[in-house]
C-alpha cells in the first residue's frame, strides 16, 4: 500500500497497465517530455519511450481521430485532453465516430479507447479550463462516462476503463487531484464500471453525487445531525440505478449534487429515475444542488458557482422541512 493522491494513483495505474500490456500507449499535448499539464504522466516518457508516450500537436480532433484508428487497429490508446473545455474540437470524433463504431460495423470493430480529461473548477484557471461536461457525453449513446472522486477509485476505475472494449471518457476532477491522499494498493485491482460507492450509510436522506462535489457533500454531512447516506456514483453512465433505488426507497428523501450547470445536468436524470422507481416512497421532492446555467465564471467567482457545504446543507433542510 502506498499513500497516494489522485494524480499519483493515476500515474501508478498507467505505469502498471503499460508494463502489463504493451498495446497500451499514451498520447496528448505535453504528456511526454513535459509529464503532462497536471504531472499525471510524469516519468512515463523516460520509462516507456517516445513511441508509447507520444507528444502531439495542439489538435484535439487529431488526437482523438488518431486514437480511434489506433484502437480499431488493436492497440489500447489513452489520449489525454488537457482540459474539459478542449473536448469541443474532439466532439465530432468522439460522438460521430468513437461512440458509433461498434454499431456502424455491426460489432466487427470496437474502439477500446480511454480518453482522460481533467474536469471541473476550483483551481483558479481561466476560461475553458473549469467546465463539467459529463452530461453531454452521458447523453451520447455508445460512450461510458467515469468520474472518480478518490485516489483508490481512480486507480481501480482507470484500469477497468483501459481494459473495457468500448470508449470511456475518464474525467479526473482537478480539485481532487491533490486534495487528499489515500491508501492505494500497489497490487492490481479493478473497480467495475457502473457501480456506485455508498460512502456512508444513513436512513433519513440520500445524497447522490460524483466527482469533486462528493467532498463538499462529506463536509455538509459532517455538520448535519441527520442520518444521511452518501452515494458516490463514480460512473456517470451507465448509472448504478440499483444503488440509488435501494437507498432512496430506504430514506424517502434525496438531494443530488453536481458541479455542472443545472438544466439538463445528470441531476435531472437522477431525479427522473427516482420518480420512476421510488415514487411511492418519496417524502419530499428530489432537490438539486448544482452549478448555475451560466458559463463557468472566472476564478474570482468560481467558488460561488460550485456547490459548497452550505448550499448542500440548505437543500437538506429544505427536503426535511417539506
Amino acid at each position, binding site marked *: 500500500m*502506498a*499513500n497516494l*493522491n489522485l*494524480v*499519483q494513483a493515476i*500515474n501508478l495505474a498507467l505505469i502498471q497497465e503499460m508494463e502489463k500490456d504493451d498495446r497500451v500507449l499514451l498520447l496528448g499535448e*505535453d504528456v511526454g517530455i513535459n509529464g503532462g*499539464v*497536471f*504531472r499525471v504522466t*510524469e*516519468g512515463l516518457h523516460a520509462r516507456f519511450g517516445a513511441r508509447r508516450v507520444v507528444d502531439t500537436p495542439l489538435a484535439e480532433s487529431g488526437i482523438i481521430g488518431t486514437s480511434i484508428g489506433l484502437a480499431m487497429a488493436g492497440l489500447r490508446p489513452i489520449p489525454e485532453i488537457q*482540459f474539459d473545455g478542449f473536448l469541443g474540437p474532439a466532439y465530432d470524433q468522439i460522438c460521430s465516430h468513437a461512440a458509433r463504431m461498434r454499431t456502424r460495423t455491426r460489432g466487427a470493430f470496437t474502439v477500446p479507447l480511454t480518453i482522460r480529461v481533467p474536469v471541473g473548477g476550483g*483551481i*483558479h*484557471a*481561466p476560461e475553458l*479550463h473549469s467546465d463539467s461536461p459529463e452530461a453531454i457525453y452521458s447523453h451520447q449513446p455508445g460512450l461510458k462516462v467515469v468520474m472518480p472522486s*478518490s485516489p*483508490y477509485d481512480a486507480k*481501480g476505475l482507470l484500469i477497468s476503463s483501459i481494459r473495457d472494449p468500448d470508449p470511456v471518457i475518464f474525467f479526473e476532477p*482537478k480539485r481532487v*487531484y*491533490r*486534495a*487528499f*491522499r*489515500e*491508501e492505494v494498493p500497489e497490487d492490481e*485491482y*479493478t*473497480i*467495475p464500471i457502473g*457501480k*456506485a*460507492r*455508498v*460512502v*456512508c450509510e444513513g436512513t433519513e436522506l440520500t445524497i447522490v453525487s460524483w466527482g469533486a462535489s462528493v*467532498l463538499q457533500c*462529506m463536509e455538509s*454531512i*459532517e455538520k448535519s445531525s441527520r442520518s444521511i447516506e*452518501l452515494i458516490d456514483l463514480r460512473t456517470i453512465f451507465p448509472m448504478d440505478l*440499483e*444503488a440509488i*433505488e*435501494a*437507498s432512496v*426507497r*430506504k430514506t*424517502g428523501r434525496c438531494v443530488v449534487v453536481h458541479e455542472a450547470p443545472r438544466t439538463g445536468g445528470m441531476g435531472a436524470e437522477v431525479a427522473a429515475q427516482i420518480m420512476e422507481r421510488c*415514487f*411511492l*416512497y*418519496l*417524502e419530499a421532492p428530489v432537490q438539486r444542488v448544482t452549478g448555475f446555467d451560466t458559463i463557468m465564471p472566472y*476564478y474570482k467567482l468560481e467558488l460561488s458557482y460550485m456547490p459548497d457545504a452550505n448550499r448542500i446543507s440548505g437543500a437538506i433542510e429544505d427536503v426535511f422541512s417539506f
Partner: protein
Amino acid sequence: MAGLKQPADKSHFLLPDLGEGLVEAELIRWLVKPGEAVKESQPMAEMQTDKALVEVPSPWAGTISELCGKEGDIIKVAAVLVRYGVGVASATKPATAPAKTAAKESAPACVSSQVAAGVKGSGDDLSKDQGTVVGSMQGTLNVASRFARKDDEHLATTTSTKTPQGKSLATPAVRRIAKELSIDINRVDGTGRGGRVTATDVGSFADAAPSASKARTPATGNGFAARAVAAPINLPPVDKDGVSQRIPFRGVRRKIAEALAKSVQTAVHFTAVDEADVTQLDIKRKEYSRVIGQKLSMLPFVMLAVCKALRAFPALNANVDDANNEILIKGVINIGVAVDTESGLMVPVIRDADRKSALELGTAVKTLAAKCKDRSITREESMGGTFTISNVGSYGGMFATPIINYPEVAILAAGRARERVLVKDGKFYAGLVLPLSISCDHRVVDGAQAVRFLSEVIRLLENPNEFTE
C-alpha cells in the same frame, strides 16, 4: 511519509509527515516512558497536526532510551522523536548519558524545534511536483473516518434492493393528506394496488384513531384536505337534538362544579395581570436541574417566590369564614396546586410550602399529581390550603381569570413562558416572559394590595438570587 528514511540500525525514530506535506506537529502527550519496552505499532506519542490529534506508533519493537521533546513542544518533521537503546530494559532507570552520546554519532542532533524541515526521500518522484501549469492547486483536506473505505469494499459494491420494512407505499398526494391530518402514514395499512395506502385508507385510519390525532386538522386552509377526506370520515351518530353523547353530571365533575359555583357566588372576584422577565430564573432553573440531576419545571420556583411574597402580604394568605363573619389570617403557608386529571380539576395541598426547597416542592407536586391521577389522593391532602397556584402554562395560554379556591382569598395563574423581545434602558433584548394572573376576593383584598403582591412576586422572579438557595 514514504520519503523519510528511518535509520537502518533502528537507533532512533524520525518524526514522519503526519499528514499531507506537514512540516511540524505539536507534541501533546507522551504515551511511553524512557526505559519502557515498546511493541511494534505501539502508540508512543499523541501529536496535534493542523487538523487532527494523531497517535504516533513505534515502527518497530525496542526499548525507549530517550524522549526527544517535552509535551507542548513543536516537533519538526524529520527531527528525532525518540531514541531506542539496546538492552536498556530497566523501567525504573531513566535514559542515561551513554545511550545519548552513543546515538549521537549516527543520528542528527536531538533538538525539537530548530531542525530544518523538508527532508524528503529521493524515492518520491512526485514530491517536487508543481501540480499544474495552468491555475493553481491548493488546499488539503482530511476525510473523516465515517467516509473511510472499508476493507474489501470493492468486492461488494452492490447494495440490497430489498424493500425496507415498516414503510408504507403511498403517492405524495396521499402522503399530504396524512400529513395534514397528523397521521404517520407508516401506521396505516394499505388496501390499494400492491399494498399501497390510498386516501380512503388514511380517512378510515383517521376515523378509527382517537380524536387527538385529528385535533390539528387545519380548520379551512385551501379546502383541499377537507374535500379530500370528507367522504371517508364517518361522523358520530347524533339524536334529533344533535347530541352525540349524554353524560350524567355527577361524581368528581359535580364536586368541582359545586365548589366553583360556591366560590363565584360568594367571593367577589377581580383579576389583575402582569408579566415577569424570567430569563435569569430560567438559567438558574436549568443550572439547578443540572446540579441535582433532575429536571425541574418553573412551577417550584414560582411557588418559592409566592411563599416569600405571602410572608410580606399576609392578607392574601387567608381564609374567609362566612358562617362566623371572620377573616382568618393564616400563620402557615399551604399552597394548593391545580392538577388536571381525566376526571377533572383537583387541588392537592403542599403543607408548609414556605419551608421547602425547590427540589422538595417539585417532588411534592409530582407525587401529589400522580396520586390525583390514580385517584389515591386522600381528602386530607386536598384540604387546608391557604393560597392556590394554577400552572395552566404547562398546557399553553397567556393570561387567565382563575376562580378562587374558596374559602381561600387569592389564586395565581401562571401562563406559558415565551421568548419575547423586551426593552430595557432603550435597548431591545430577547427574554423569557412569564404571564401571571391573580384573582382575589375583593371583600378581603383590595386591588392595590393585589397588585402590590403581584409586583413583589414579579420582583422576586426577576431577582432569583433573593429567593432561591
